[in-house]
């Protein structure tokens, strides 16, 4: 199958933009769900109103980000069938089952119970309500796991047999335990915790700098954020490093070679692929892959410095309340994990090019046979909508974060003045 070159380029750009954006939402959601669940556990155990307020405040920020993240995820889900039907034709038997499991085992339960958590506040028994946020968190992890099973298969296909023109699933266990999936899954979990912990520390620092009335809640939140960030950073880098050592993978070999900047090694990988698959360019853009990896690790190093310093500072109560320079530093550090996460994503996904399924299916053979006109319509529409969603999300998040716990609607008891107005009042 040979499709129009413009369709291919547009489909790639659309996937990169939508998947990259979705990934940034996931990074915060996945980590923040965990921290909210922990804070709510403490609130439920101690019945301390400070922790109850913290749960509602951080929970509200989590829900805002989740809601926008979910619609970007819907686009992802349908886009694969829409733009990449070559992939579903070729690898659907293997790759599709992980997507199916993700929707049913993880996402279905996550959404159902998240709705119950949001709207069942003050209606459910507090232990049942606590159980809900933990189920939501664990199913979010499960969702990430299944997505990484799909993605890991594309990076490092295992447990399949080539039957004519498509793949057949032969070993479920191998697909589920693909080291490429498992390591990346934990690496991303760690990264999500880093993202959420820097977010929590930075937002708390903002309020402490301004001398917020609920300083106790924000002092505690800042300590949670800083305290989680250091182990999360170390966990993330360990799992990242382990991915270099997965044996027998050409894309991994290339990624290592490109990152190491060894031209000889890069040439050797290319020569090896030409020998096996015939003439062609089998290398991704080395500068982009190398640059993304460098940026990811540089951001990590800066975060490590900030986190290490902050762990020392946070043991002094007066410092936590008063040291404005540090508050500024923590606030300015909020974007760092996002930079690191997206660079890591570029490193992983661009590093796999030009393969859709490594060494089995080229990206150009995976794209749907759509007209460039349809693709232009689709990328324009989703490009505009995603830009609007990103602006809306971060504006709402910043606004809610600045307002602090007073203006939180999540879990608020219904005030009498919010009762429905009489029918006579119309406009």
């Amino acid at each position, binding site marked *: 199958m040979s499709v129009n070159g413009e369709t291919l380029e547009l489909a790639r750009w659309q996937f990169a933009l939508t998947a990259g954006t979705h990934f940034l939402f996931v990074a915060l959601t996945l980590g923040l769900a965990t921290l909210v669940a922990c804070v709510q556990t403490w609130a439920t155990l101690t019945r301390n109103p400070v922790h109850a307020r913290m749960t509602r405040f951080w929970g509200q920020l989590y829900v805002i980000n989740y809601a926008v993240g979910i619609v970007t995820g819907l686009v992802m889900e349908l886009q694969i069938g829409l733009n990449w039907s070559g992939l579903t034709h070729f690898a*659907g038997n293997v790759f*599709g089952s992980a997507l199916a499991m993700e929707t049913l085992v993880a*996402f279905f339960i996550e959404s159902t119970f998240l709705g119950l958590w949001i709207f069942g506040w003050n209606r459910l028994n507090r232990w049942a309500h606590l159980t809900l946020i933990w189920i939501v968190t664990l199913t979010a992890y499960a969702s990430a796991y299944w997505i990484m099973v799909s993605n890991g298969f594309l990076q490092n296909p295992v447990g399949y047999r080539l039957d004519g023109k498509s793949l057949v699933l032969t070993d479920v266990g191998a697909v589920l335990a693909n080291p490429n999936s498992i390591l990346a899954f934990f690496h991303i979990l760690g990264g999500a915790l880093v993202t959420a912990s820097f977010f929590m520390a930075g937002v708390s620092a903002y309020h402490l700098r301004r001398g917020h009335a609920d300083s106790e809640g924000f002092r505690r939140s800042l300590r949670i954020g800083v305290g989680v960030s250091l182990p999360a950073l170390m966990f993330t880098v360990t799992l990242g490093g382990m991915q270099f050592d997965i044996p027998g993978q050409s894309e991994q070999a290339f990624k290592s070679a490109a990152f190491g900047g060894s031209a000889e090694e890069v040439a050797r990988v290319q020569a090896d692929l030409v020998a096996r698959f015939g003439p062609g360019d089998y290398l991704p853009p080395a500068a982009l892959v190398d640059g993304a990896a460098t940026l990811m690790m540089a951001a990590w190093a800066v975060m490590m410095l900030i986190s290490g310093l902050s762990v020392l500072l946070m043991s002094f109560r007066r410092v936590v309340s008063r040291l404005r320079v540090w508050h500024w530093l923590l606030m300015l550090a909020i974007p760092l994990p996002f930079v690191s996460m997206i660079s890591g994503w570029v490193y992983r996904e661009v590093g796999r090019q030009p393969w859709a399924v490594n060494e089995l299916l080229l990206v150009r053979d995976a794209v749907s046979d759509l007209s460039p006109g349809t693709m232009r319509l689709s990328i324009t529409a989703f490009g505009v909508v995603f830009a609007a*969603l990103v602006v809306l999300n971060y504006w709402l998040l910043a606004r809610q974060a600045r307002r602090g716990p007073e203006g939180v609607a999540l879990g608020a008891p219904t005030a009498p003045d919010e009762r429905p*107005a009489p029918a006579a009042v119309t406009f």
Partner: protein
Amino acid sequence: MEMIAIGLLGFFVLGYLLLAGSDIGVGMTLPVLGRADAERRVVIAAIAPFFLGNEVWLVAVVGLLAGMFPDLEGDLLSGLGPAVVVLLLGWIARDMGLWSRGRVDRRSWRVFWDGAIVAGSWTLALTWGWILAGVLAGDVAGPTPVRAVFAVVIAAVFAVHGLAFAALRLRGPARERARTLSGPSGEGATFGLTSAALAVLGVLAGLRLPLADTVADAGTLAFLVPAVLIILPFLVGAQAWVWWIFRHRVEGPSYL
């Protein structure tokens, strides 16, 4: 195994049409049901606890298509092309409207997002009408006047379905409005009828699809079908818990 796979797909398709059909229908009729700003917020509270759990039925359908009918998934979605894009845009507008309207306390803000809810819901219903009409005609690509008329009729079924649901969930003047438009037989009967209509549409559309010919390889089904059957009671149980908690009529505004 193949029949079970088809049955599972049908179960989730019907679940989506009946459940999400009601929240889409309420969104379509929001300006009729809620005349004032505060009243609309209460109307939205009728669907608030459910819409997130309703729309995941469609996500599950797409997941099952990808896993159990991979060839059909690719052909169907890319064959529908622009309709899928429009469906997604309507879905995004509706959801962002629901999530955003209560986040800023300003009248113009809420009016804007209420508009997004209504426009998004209509887009969803009309696109479903368009898609279902195309599948029933056996030609997902060709636009014809008959198909357009059919799409409008199906969208109207969604709207009446939503009105009946609203009548079952609301009180006071909003409920009266929902009932008037639902017909004299009572909202329960109307809801039953519209549910049956949507279910019949779903089944007929399913019969037109080459499901048996596109089912995944036996090795894949041997893993997926038992896994889905095991998880199914938990999924239905989770949803049933939500319906049980929110079985009473709406008393006031919700988080949205």
